[in-house]
């Protein structure tokens, strides 16, 4: 009997040690939610992207923070005019099933992205409002034409995960095959996903040989897993759990928090009321208190690293007297400034969102506005945020957080400020023209036009209340040489991880 007990103890001890000591060259990543699927065309969703994008499936181009657009599966691209771009594919690239990458795979991936059998996140998010046609020049050369022309087509190709043309065109794949440095080995639903390094990858061999992804919805548990040595990276932990400066990194997560104002309903249709809303907010007071240190005050819809972000704009200062003056002037002209304004907040949108919304409500009430806060679930929130808006004739402001990690305002500005934009509270022909012109421009001209557009939205029409550019927190095991970046919000390239 004692022998039996000691064997059991030894087994338990061994499993404990096995469970808690991470193997060299292997990493464990703990994600905040289980992946609903592992389909590459859904990789625009952050948790799917963190597993699949550039690990299993690659894109033609890649937006690298600080370096701009870089080659990935395409070695070069050229504007052929008339909305056509010619991409030259990298020679010698194979998928993990052994088939060679060619232009037909790009055509297949583009068509599948707009399939009529299912809706792809990437297709729905980035490929609306224009038609793409393709022409295969040879196995490694393809022309892609956009109608209307898209000067940022090469940037758009940084979102398209490439699949082999042998993939199922009519259903999501559950065993993705890609050209990336890792093969997709196993998905034990509810438990883990495993990837392992390919030995026939076209690029440099990565240091990390195996990766396991597990899912824990509680931030405290994710943080504890890294602290206990059970995991290496928790890409997304809450502010209150980021307590160890040795392991916890903050990074700009490309999210911008703002108040979308319905500019068509009184009293919000008066620019002085919208200015008053801006002046009444003490943005600085939130930072380092209920919002994380490192959070930036916002003057535009995209993160400051986006091209065309207007760095000359300054946030509205907190000036309660000025706010009251503006409201008094509007009231004197018959604007119903005492009308009840419904403020819609989205539950669990970001850490401390409810406290933030309550504080904002209080600031606006102090300025004399009649604000009624309503916190709602995501589905209900969407009915206020996206057209056709739920209004009932009431003046409504909607709290929203917008993500743009793609480096160009075009992914934001039409939907948020075009008259036909699905979340736009503005209908301004001049602004429509500015967005259209900037969208069609290239190079320095494009940058200048976007800067003017940002200034017009911020200074002239005061369309919304811009609040903050947010930061995220990642906990990284001390054995790793890895620092998160703005891209960590949407992808996590295992090949960029080294061991100390």
């Amino acid at each position: 009997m004692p022998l039996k007990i000691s064997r059991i103890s030894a087994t338990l001890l061994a499993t404990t040690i096995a469970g808690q000591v991470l193997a060299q060259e292997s990493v464990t990543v703990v994600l905040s939610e289980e992946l609903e699927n592992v389909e590459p065309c859904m990789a625009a969703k952050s948790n799917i992207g963190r597993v699949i994008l550039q690990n299993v499936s690659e894109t033609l181009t890649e937006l690298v923070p600080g370096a701009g657009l870089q080659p990935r599966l395409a070695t070069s691209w050229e504007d052929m005019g008339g909305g056509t771009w010619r991409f030259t594919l990298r020679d010698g690239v194979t998928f993990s099933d052994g088939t060679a990458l060619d232009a037909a795979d790009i055509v297949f991936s583009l068509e599948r992205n707009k399939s009529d059998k299912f809706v792809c996140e990437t297709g729905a998010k980035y490929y609306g409002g224009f038609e793409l046609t393709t022409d295969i020049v040879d196995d490694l050369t393809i022309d892609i034409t956009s109608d209307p022309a898209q000067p940022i087509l090469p940037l758009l190709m940084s979102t398209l995960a490439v699949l082999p043309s042998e993939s199922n065109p009519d259903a999501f794949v559950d065993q993705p095959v890609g050209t990336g440095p890792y093969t997709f080995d196993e998905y034990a639903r509810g438990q883990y996903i495993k990837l392992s390094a390919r030995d026939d990858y076209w690029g440099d061999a990565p240091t990390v040989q195996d990766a396991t992804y597990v899912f824990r919805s509680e931030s405290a548990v994710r943080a504890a897993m890294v602290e206990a040595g059970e995991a290496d990276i928790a890409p997304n932990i809450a502010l209150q759990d980021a307590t160890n400066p040795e392991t916890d990194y903050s990074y700009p997560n490309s999210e911008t928090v703002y108040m979308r104002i319905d500019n068509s309903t009184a009293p919000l249709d008066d620019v002085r009321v919208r200015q008053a809303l801006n002046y009444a907010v003490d943005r600085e007071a939130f930072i380092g208190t209920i919002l994380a240190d490192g959070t930036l005050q916002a003057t535009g819809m995209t993160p400051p690293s986006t091209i065309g972000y207007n760095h000359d704009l300054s946030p509205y200062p907190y000036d309660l007297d000025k706010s009251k003056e503006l409201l008094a002037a509007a009231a004197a002209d018959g604007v119903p400034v005492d009308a009840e304004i419904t403020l819609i907040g989205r539950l669990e949108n970001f850490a401390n969102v409810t406290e933030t919304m309550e504080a904002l409500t209080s600031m606006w009430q102090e300025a004399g506005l009649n604000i009624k806060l309503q916190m709602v679930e995501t589905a209900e929130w969407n009915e206020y945020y996206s057209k056709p808006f739920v209004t009932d004739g009431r003046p409504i402001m909607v709290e929203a957080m917008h993500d743009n990690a793609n480096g160009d305002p075009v992914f934001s500005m039409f939907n948020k400020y075009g008259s036909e934009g699905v979340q736009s509270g503005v209908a301004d022909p001049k602004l429509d023209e500015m967005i259209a012109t900037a969208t069609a421009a290239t190079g320095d001209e494009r940058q200048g036009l976007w800067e003017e557009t940002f200034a017009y939205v911020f200074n002239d029409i005061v369309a919304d209340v811009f609040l903050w550019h947010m930061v995220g927190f990642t906990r990284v095991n001390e054995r790793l040489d890895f620092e998160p970046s703005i891209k960590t919000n949407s992808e996590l390239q295992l090949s960029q991880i080294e061991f100390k």
Partner: protein
Amino acid sequence: MKSFLGKRAIASAISLIGLIILVFFLSRLTGDPTNLYLPVDASQESRDRFREIHGLNDPLIVQFFHYMSDLVQFDFGMSIRRAEPALDAVLRAFVWTLQLAIITMTLVTGSAIVLGSLAAYHVGGFFDRIATFCSLIGASAPDFWIAIVAIVVFSVHLGWVPTSGTGTVLHWILPIGVLFIRPFGLIVQVVRGSMITALSSAYVKTARAKGVRNRPIIFVHALRNAMLPVITVIGDQAASLLNGAVVVETIFGFPGVGKLMIDSILQRDFAVVMAAIFVTAVAIFVMNILIDILYAVLDPRIRY
């Protein structure tokens, strides 16, 4: 007994059909899932296509008849979110929950009966104080708090057990430990109360007068008669666990049916919600029938 079981099965089936109809329409009242599945910037064209693909453009009554006609073939439909058959997702999760419930309730029942009986034998004594303390903890400490504290103490600081997840025997210790506390606190009090009554009955006094020792008096004579109310409470607690231990599943990353159900409700993944409710309802009906049978076994006066 056969006739009783037949009647119970028919009554359960009718309840199940009523439940399915109710949940089908109530879940649809929560709204269209399109906005939850597509990115907020999705075009109207994408939204229309999504509704068409998932049959959301049909009138509700047509959707219901489609659902029922599939259901008679045991087809619960596809999960929109997971792109797999809804029943597969639910059964996979239910196996985890079932294991968790069986292990937890076995441990709870065994230990609560022993401690509750000893507490009843010496009211106000050492075991009675322990039973009262356990009941107080079970009734007052929230699962969430206990789970987080347990992780911090036993996983992070002491390193005895993994924080969460599945894979080894040790992964089960914290979830079962946390799940154990609440039903144990409740059942130990029911056992204690029921045993105090049984131990003061005439047949126990007669047994004592005849010189029967304490252990057989407590665990043979009194316990069997005290078990009926205890079984009722055990059944109630087991049903709660079969419905999913949402907090524990969430914190410890246990892929059980409770978390699946909550996530599916929030995501309006109707097929999974329906399948999950169907499976857990069937499990609870089966458990109730087993309890009825157990009543008859323990008390020969009960006849069906």
